[in-house]
């Protein structure tokens, strides 16, 4: 596998534009063993040579599956992304697809230019995007290539594009509810922090579930970090839990800290949005199995590349696996007893 790391700023600075290649693609020595400069100089030639060789050999190798180029476009680098890519590749490796990958990482200011540059000479069969910025760039710039988005919060945007589908980060309401009742079976008054920009579908689904069990959910919409101080003042100190269900982008580190302060001061457990929140003091969170998110994306890719199903016919998916992360120290501080029978099902218990 070749992996390229395009940094548009470096591209401009080094005037590699003239090479009219994927330009300033950084071949990772540890993965390829090739030298960066040689890679840059030769990439244009090699890619053309590759296409030439492919066109010559395809008739001869008609019984062998053709290589399928897949571009992985990630918003930035990070362990979750790597895990999702690994899951994606492993899953596709078990198919008859002979996939070859190129990875492009957006730099902070590159926007869509980097992608446009790349696609001038490189024509993947599919693009898998990782993260919201990469997804937005792809949706804006690419109309002819199927896109499978991954690690995105807002899957509604995908539905607006006929060439896109993907796997979202938002868990379905029943998963949220299941874990709430497992960890906090006695909670009766719960404030739900949600991002109204993502619609109220999730809140309504939770509300329906709550009403059927006689539990009061209090709406606490958070669109911006500035909303939090007044929102927390308005919250009743008699709440049983503070439940953040989506809208990660609305929270800065300082805002999460404010929520945690409220939580600890009032001994109202905070249900967080990720394992990081739990490490910082939230009671629990539903975290993601990134490897499986990659595998889910691979299944969409298979349906598109092997079965020829149009992306528009593949509705975006929610994560099917949940990694519940629990902070036992917080549970102790909140004087909560966690039922022993659920502990084996919790992926990570922080002591």
């Amino acid at each position, binding site marked *: 596998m070749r992996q390229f790391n395009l940094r548009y700023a470096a591209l401009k600075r080094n005037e590699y534009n003239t090479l009219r290649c994927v330009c300033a693609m950084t071949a990772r020595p540890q993965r390829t063993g090739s030298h960066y400069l040689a890679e840059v100089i030769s990439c244009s030639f090699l890619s053309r040579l590759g296409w030439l060789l492919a066109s010559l050999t395809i008739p001869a190798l008609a019984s062998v599956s053709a290589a399928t180029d897949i571009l992985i476009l990630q918003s930035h680098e990070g362990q979750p992304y790597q895990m999702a890519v690994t899951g994606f590749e492993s899953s596709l490796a078990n198919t008859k697809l002979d996939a070859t990958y190129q990875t492009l990482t957006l730099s902070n200011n590159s926007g869509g230019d980097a992608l446009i540059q790349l696609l001038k000479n490189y024509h993947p069969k599919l693009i898998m995007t990782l993260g919201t910025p990469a997804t937005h760039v792809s949706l804006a710039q690419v109309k002819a290539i199927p896109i499978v988005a991954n690690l995105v919060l807002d899957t509604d945007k995908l539905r607006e594009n006929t060439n896109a589908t993907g796997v979202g980060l938002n868990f379905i309401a029943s998963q949220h509810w299941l874990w709430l009742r497992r960890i906090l079976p006695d909670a009766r008054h719960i404030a739900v922090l949600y991002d109204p920009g993502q619609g109220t579908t999730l809140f309504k689904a939770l509300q329906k579930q709550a009403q059927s069990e006689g539990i009061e959910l209090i709406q606490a919409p958070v669109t911006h970090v500035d909303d939090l101080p007044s929102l927390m003042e308005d919250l009743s100190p008699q709440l049983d839990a503070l439940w953040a269900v989506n809208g990660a982008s609305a929270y800065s580190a300082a805002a999460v800290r404010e929520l945690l302060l409220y939580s600890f001061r009032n001994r109202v457990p905070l249900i967080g949005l990720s394992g990081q929140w739990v*490490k910082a003091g939230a009671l629990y969170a539903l975290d993601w199995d990134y490897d499986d998110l990659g595998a889910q994306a691979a299944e969409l890719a298979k349906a598109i590349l092997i079965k020829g199903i149009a992306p528009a016919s593949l509705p975006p998916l929610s994560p099917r696996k949940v990694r519940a992360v629990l902070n036992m120290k917080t549970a102790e501080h909140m004087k909560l007893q966690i039922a022993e029978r659920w502990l084996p099902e919790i992926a990570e218990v922080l002591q």
Partner: protein
Amino acid sequence: MSIYRILVAISYCFCLSAQAEDTTPLPAKATDEQDLLFSELPSVFTASRHEQPVTKAPASIDIINSEQIKRYGWRTVSAMLGSLPGFISTYDRAYHHNGVRGFAPPGDYNTRILVLIDGHRVNESLQDYAGLGQDFLVDMENIERVEVVRGPASSLYGSSALFAVVNVITQRGRDLQGVRTSADLASYGTHRGQLSYGKKFANGLETFLSASHYHSDGRENLNFPGLGTAHNLDEDEVQRVHGKLTWEDFTFSGSWMSRKKYLPTGTTGTTFGEPNVYYHDRRAYADLNYQHHFEGDWAVTGRAFWDSYEFDDDLPYQLSASQTIVNEDRWQGQWFGGELLLSHTFFDAHRLTLGSEFRHNYQELMTNQDVNPSYVYANNNQSTSIVGVYVQDEWTILDNLSLQAGGRYDHYDNFGGTFNPRLGLIYEPRDGTTLKLLYGTAFRAPNAFETAYTCCIASTPWIGNSSLRPEHIETYEIVWEQRLNQYFDLRVSPYYNRLTDLISLRIADTGVRQFQNQGNAEAHGLETQLKGHYENIEGRLSHTYQESRIGGYATSPNAPLHMIKLNLSAPLWQDKLFAGLEVQYVSSRATTIGNRVSNYSITNLTLLSRHWLPGLELTGGLYNLFDEHYVDPASPPLSPDVISQDGRNFRVRMSYEF
């Protein structure tokens, strides 16, 4: 002085290491954040009567939480306050009292500190007394956190908030969620038992109930130079009941405390060494609080309360070698009142708080008589009322600049009105740096004892002074709070206080005793505190420099020039065993009559063990570890000039929650 030098050296090392860390800041980790949450919540309610970050509050603030109380083994609120910069804790074997910022004359029983329990005023109506020792209304185990706000706060709270406001926030049902039993065993024949129950129910009702009994035989022998040895005269007995019930926006709370303390020192008129000389204090209150945030950012707080303070004593004196007569005081103060507070944010930049308070002291009874034969020396009874209105605006001028301005007008039946403003300009030039420029005035109204107590005309006459004016303080302070890195915070606060119309007892040549507005006082000082925190290790090191002059005294009594305090807590083994070390150095002080008592250094060590068995905690404390012999200046009307303090002593506590 060697300890003093060592502590100074430690403080410099501490600062230098902090600076070194600053040059190589480490990225904040979530786990560090979590440890911070468990150790201290950097927000405060008391300073502005709403929750705000400490850095935004117009005062120099310290916060102590229940975990720190356990780890340092503080047995009284007074001892806990004594660990803070600027505070000194003194014990005269009758009451504990705390001085602040160079003003700690013996006999001032916390009348110039406003003490609150969950926002309810503790200072009583007859003498403004707030018990902070064994006579505090709430057991230490029931305290969730304590907010200590230095500086004048009469602009929000009215009388007595001259030097500091101490708000003790008690535990709620959710803080316990079950039953807690605890038992103490300590030196001097001391034992204590407590039973508490707390629960937050699924229907939203929340309750907390606690009762305790404390008994101490006290020191077997207490020697008072020039007077003799008091043998088995130090007994102390306390009962407490405390409860809280919360339903939606309403909280009903109440406390009752009874303490009987025998006086090894004797007191005015009694014969030294006479047994059965005691003070008996009873304090109670009931408080109904309503708090609600309405749509549109309107917040309303209402409070209705009833309070009672009763005091009696037996003061036997020898009329002749064969005849002992018991003289007794019977005091009773009862009052009720209400409070209403409304706050709203206008134009996104002005948080306006409007409030009013009313108190009616419907009984202020102070009597004195001999029992057998019966003879009434004093029988004073009166009722008074107080009305106060206040306004405060917190103006966010820029993201990093705010101005807090407020004032309160109080009207008293007896002396009329007084207005006290407060101004605070708070500037954050960069992340982690806060500068506060503070100005304010505060007052203490003449109390019933000072204005109305008339007694003993034929012997040692006391004459009430109905023309007393309130005493005032004017304070200028700068607070510089600096986050050095993710582990260390520094606070430096220079201040200047000027007190006028001080109310103090004057004994005329004719022997007539009367409280009068006489003389002024002033004090300046510098408090420096470095706080550190790394995972489960936390500590603070402070130095206090203070210099004060009080009219009528050649040297301000009980006012050390320097105090250095170190508190350090660390786990010894996993999360099962913690050690809490406390070291305090107090430089020499003057007594009331101008003698000097020498400096002292005391070290307390506490071990806290938990998580061996579910719900079980064991605490062992060694106090005055190196058996330092030291004395505190005494308070009139107790007889000696100085009073020796406890040597090395211990306490073990077992607490079990289920």
